[in-house]
């Protein structure tokens, strides 16, 4: 699903000829790949740094904070038999994601706040994977609420944490420690991996979780 090309990683383009955010398209043995820019995507950054990302082609994914779909477009390349529900509450960025979803048959836009998972219960089923990148002070609680409602047992969650969005004044290390404690205390998750995103992002951490 993901190939390595020297220092880069790339995904096989689900819609040949389409570049989503200005990334390079390259051909190998007649197959077109989209280069995954680690500076534009936190999932991309963790993959380049070698974190596991146990996404399967047939997974159902709930993406909180999908924005215009930079990262989601690569997950869409990977989900050849799956589906991704992308939630964002900002109309301007979600507008771009709707346009992207119209070109890719495995993307579903949800215009709502991730704070209110009951708002999109009408369409989102139980999922195998949650990706969260919302940069909000209460993002641990957002994650927990959504996982309780939507994540299957043993399903995975990938979470990007930006220290400054949670507490501008505290030391990133402390913010991350506190975040992990909050996630553990919920009793919902086991923490499989954590990783800092330097040099691609400053004061960011990514976590890979598994639902108990």
């Amino acid at each position: 699903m993901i190939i390595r090309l020297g220092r880069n990683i790339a995904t096989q383009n689900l819609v040949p000829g389409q570049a989503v955010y200005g990334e390079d398209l390259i051909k190998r043995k007649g197959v077109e790949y989209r280069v995954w820019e680690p500076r534009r995507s936190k999932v991309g950054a963790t993959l380049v740094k070698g974190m596991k990302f146990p996404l399967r082609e047939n997974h159902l994914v709930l993406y909180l904070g999908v924005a215009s779909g930079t990262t989601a477009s690569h997950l869409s390349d990977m989900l050849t038999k799956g589906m991704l529900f992308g939630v964002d509450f900002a109309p301007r960025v979600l507008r771009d994601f709707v346009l992207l979803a119209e070109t890719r048959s495995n993307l579903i836009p949800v215009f709502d706040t991730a704070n209110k998972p009951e708002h999109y219960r009408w369409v989102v089923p139980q999922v195998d994977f949650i990706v969260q990148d919302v940069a909000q002070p209460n993002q641990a609680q957002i994650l927990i609420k959504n996982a309780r409602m939507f994540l299957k047992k043993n399903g995975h969650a990938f979470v990007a944490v930006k220290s400054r969005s949670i507490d501008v004044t505290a030391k990133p290390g402390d913010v991350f420690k506190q975040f992990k404690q909050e996630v553990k205390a919920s009793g919902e998750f086991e923490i499989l991996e954590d990783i800092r995103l330097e040099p691609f992002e400053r004061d960011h951490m990514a976590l890979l979780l598994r639902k108990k």
Partner: protein
Amino acid sequence: MVQLAKTPVGFFVVAMRNQVVEFEELSNQPDKAAEQLLTYEEWVTRMKQKGYDIETDEPALDPMKVAELIGVSESAYLARSREVSIAVAKAAIKKHLKRDLLVVQTVGALDDLTKTTNMLMNRLTEWYGLHYPELKVEEDQEKYLKMMVQGRKVSDSMGMDLAEEDLHIIMDYADSIRELFRRKEALEAYLDRIMAQVAPNVHVLAGANLGARLIARAGGLEALSRMPGSTIQVLGAEKALFKHILKGVPPPKHGVIFQHPLISRAPREQRGKLARSMATRLAIAAKVDFYSGDLRPSLMDGWAERVKEVEQGETKKSERSENKGKQPPFKSVRVKRGDKHGKK
């Protein structure tokens, strides 16, 4: 006891052992289905009237599993979800993106009209003043126009006599100004209506005109919703803010928010603190308006207490340390310290 499910396929009442006892199918045209989804609450009411004992109004069941109960496969469910969600998202975004931009334009048009009528009125009073210098505008320009049309001039006026033709041309000119005043009234009423839709909480707190100005200054409701109170407090004082940063003069205490009747009518020394409290409330109001649109009357809770506190604080001020409570909304950035007492 039954459970409800709202899904992209339709609305369900599900009884024990996964028995579907009611199913209201949605159109298979995505746009229609998106509209029908909005009628869910009415459908719930109908089901209650039918006598179902419903566990909770909130749809609690997994929609894909429920659809499976009537034979909709997983892949069919997902394909359908995608079409309907795209239609729902498009409709919602369309609603969201457009209306606040109308507010921005309307308030801009009102400002243009005010500037224009002021300019035209200046000319008119000078012009008509040749004929009737004793008629004064006072503050009410519209009244001036009315009296002018009535045309009753005091008998001992010092003004010059005008021929029919001269008067006629002036009256026509005045008529076009009156038309602009009517246009202004219509815009104000319209602004009031759309503000109540686009930003109901900001509307209640700040009024249509000031609320619209804040949205316009911020560059839209979304932008305003991202601003902290300290920024909202100085919106419209950008020039003063630049001066403060470049020249080290004291930072501005308040921008357009100063026009708020609860603030502009307060004693001068209290306005800064009241503006800050109002700006904090407006920051929350804008967020609620942008993200949910529900009306939250509680946003003005505690205002009266705050006003009292500020009043009492003022009388006790001499007992307190100089700077406390007097601080500007952000840190002072003085470039040259020596300038501190320079301007007197």
